[in-house]
């Protein structure tokens, strides 16, 4: 079933791209299968799990709820753009590792992108508020403690879990 084709130009992880895409192509599929940045994962394709979160013009966005054509003129950041391949892990990534904030790692890129935007906002949140702010991303492995501790540490410079 052929659909309409559209020319789009956008920036991905700091690099300009020009492509022609089907009107119905999801941004998530475009990033993963056409551009081959497979670090962005797809968990539900109905905008709930948050695994496919990327930053569009700096805002955390579910790439499964956006069409590739809507990327036209935008700046997109994916997990692959967080740290150059040869560089050590960025502080947020290192904190996830330190606090065992990932197990299977499938949801992790989405969490990292959501947290990246949160950290860039410059806000200093309590652990309770971090929990609310991160609650749009689902993780089935970790039970979230390590994720919350990691974000807290990078945001507030503390490394404790919130066990009471």
């Amino acid at each position, binding site marked *: 079933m052929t659909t309409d084709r559209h020319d789009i130009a956008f920036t991905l992880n700091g690099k300009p791209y020009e492509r022609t895409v089907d009107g119905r192509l999801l941004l998530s599929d475009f990033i993963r299968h056409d551009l081959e940045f*497979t*670090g962005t994962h797809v*968990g539900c394709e109905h905008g709930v799990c948050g695994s496919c979160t990327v930053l569009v013009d700096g805002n955390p966005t579910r790439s499964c709820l956006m069409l590739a054509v809507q990327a036209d003129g935008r700046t997109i950041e994916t997990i692959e753009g967080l740290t150059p*391949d040869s560089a050590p*892990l960025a502080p947020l990534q290192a904190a996830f590792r330190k606090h065992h904030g990932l197990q299977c790692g*499938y949801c992790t890129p989405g969490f990292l992108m959501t947290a990246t935007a949160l950290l860039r906002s410059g806000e200093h949140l309590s652990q309770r508020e971090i*929990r609310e702010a991160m*609650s749009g991303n689902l993780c089935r492995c970790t039970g979230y403690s390590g994720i919350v501790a990691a974000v807290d540490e990078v945001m507030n410079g503390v490394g404790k879990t919130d*066990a009471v």
Partner: protein
Amino acid sequence: MPSSWVGTPVLRREDDRLLRGHGRFVDDMHAAGMLHAAVFRSPVAHARITSLDVSAALALPGVHAIFTAADLGDVNRPFPLPVPHPKLRAKTPVPLASDTVRYVGEPIALIVADDRYIAEDAFDHIAIDFEPLVATPSLEGALAGGDCVIHPDLGDNVAARFGQSYGDVEAAFAAADVIVRESFTSDRGSGQPIETRAIFAVPDVNTGVITVWDTTQSPHVARRLMAATLDLPEDQIHVIAPDVGGGFGPKVVFYPEEVIVPFAARALQRPIKYVEDRLEHFRATVHEREQVHECELAAKSDGTLLGMRVRIVHDTGAYVPWGVIVPFITLTTIPGPYHLPNYDAEVTVVYTNRVPVTPHRGAGRPQAVFSMERMLDRLANELHLDQAEIRRRNYIGADEFPYDVGLIFRDGSPMSYDSGDYPQAQQTALERIGYDAFPAYQAELRAQGRFVGIGMAGYVEGTGLGPHESARLRVDSAGKIRIMSGAASQGQGHETTLAQVAADALGMPMEDISVRTGDTAGVPYGIGAFASRLGALASSAVKIGATQLRERILQAAGAFLEVSPDDLEIVDGSVRVAGSPSQSIRLGDLAVQSSGAFPGSTLPNDLVEIGLETTAYFRPTQSTYASGFHVVTVEVDPVGGIVTILKYVIAHDCGNAINPLIVEGQVQGGLAAGIGGALYERTVYDDMGQLISGSFVDYLLPTSAEVPAAEIHHIHAPTPLNPLGAKGAGEGGTIPAPAAIVAAVENALWPDGSFHLHAFPLTPELVWQAARDAQAPA
């Protein structure tokens, strides 16, 4: 370098690639000429297919092929049953429905196209007619039979009836001072890994070998079943489970797509990728948990348990893809950590027109623990005893191991608890939550119109089920140790923990050791990741193998250096004579020379084995029994039905922890699944067998806002049953959570025990409803 890697919270090796987005999951794989598949599934729960015409769909541009049951020929026969039971009348799934469909989501056709979008377009062009049959999507309806027999040749919807008992239950009840009766129900829940199932089949036109990248938890079992169904020799099938995005049980099972995708790839001689979407995952990947338990508990007036009768009805869905181990495990888990001198349990397994059922994290144990622990709560109320005290009076003591329960476990061995300290676990958890001070706190808040409650539950969990697990270890030509484990990983961190175990046994640094899992080419036989068997079995296989490999290294070095192996040590990648470092050979050179470096040469006479490689198996004689105790405080808003967890304390025993960081992650992660199962995750079907809860909007997974960080305490009772003293840690966070949380909600609303909650999940609607029914103060 720590004196022992085992027991050290080593940061994970897996993390770097996963944190950079460089993990390789099945859907990340590509191959030249790759096609994409979509599965056309039954839209109805029970019907006869009267006609099926795919010609219009096949004519769509971009559609390469459509496979129906007729196209599969002999391949379209019922799967072998992986776990037989003598009382089971098993109806296993077929790859594609040919005549009758028995649940919404059952595969009917595989469409292969240039991309997934086109493959799904083809759905609209498939002409299919159904003759509707009465659907039975409920346990009660299926048991009643009536107009609906799901597998007509069986005569009714009962898949199995079996039971176990010990002692004299009749006499126990006759002698009882008090008898408590209650019925408990649990609704369907499911694993819901964030990565759905995916299969990528790549045929090699030159060799005929087909490589199947598969999200399976059991690559070797998958290969065996692929070989059996596709009529291929096993060595023509190469199964690889790469990075896998969570498993939790459902990915153990063998699915129709694991046959039809490789079949199609071989037929078309093209790589074909199939990735399940989330709606399909809800409609086609196995569920668990729905059971009804009728329980009777007999006790003396001092709370001493005398006997228990349990009647379990278990919903297996439309087929039995795996076995009847879920209710079997329920039956055997109910006695738990208690002296229960007489016990009689019966199970009835029932077919329904719903997704088939196999184990999900906990595997029948959450239901078992819910029944036993809630019965003890009832008994405590009845006898005006404290809920902790009634448990204390019945615990099996730390000095009573091995303790024979009197039942046969699902591995066929007598249930004999090997180790533990149940009273200590309870005491630790209760102290940490401030149990003694809680009633005063509760009364104080109640006076302010706030409802807080406390609940507790303990469990004993058979972990580390056989038959074996494997490891192959090899010294490569660079002198590094390469380990392949037969147990695949879905996030548990094998690359790290197995290297820790090997480093200790070899006396080498972890940096020199690498671990791969999930590849049938890597190790001849393997079983897989389920039943919390990695720490106990896969690690033990590595320990045995690494110990053998060290002996082999020293023996070979001794032969080449012409010294006694006893005089040798392994230091900095070389084997050298202790005290005489100039007499040494590099490990890599030793590996090359001992495997025959120079064609036509003669190896030293003293060299016993060729090469530096070993394959080791660990075969447990029986399961090893982990245990633990959960206590939780909650606040309940009876108007909104909202339950907030205030504090959650876990004391658990998994014996020796190989990596405490990973163990705590397993416990905390298990708890999240337990909280979901207790309060949120409910699978709903309507009367026609349509799945209502087919998205994460309808089926709620707990988020970071609902799951508190548990306070976790380790009770240390190593098992004597394996070389590491390790017991499983993957499911204990989940198992008692529904019992403890539901008890806490009940205690919050009715601290006098005047109203009973006997079902889970206790969704907000049910909390609200119960509060209203009981006219709790709101």
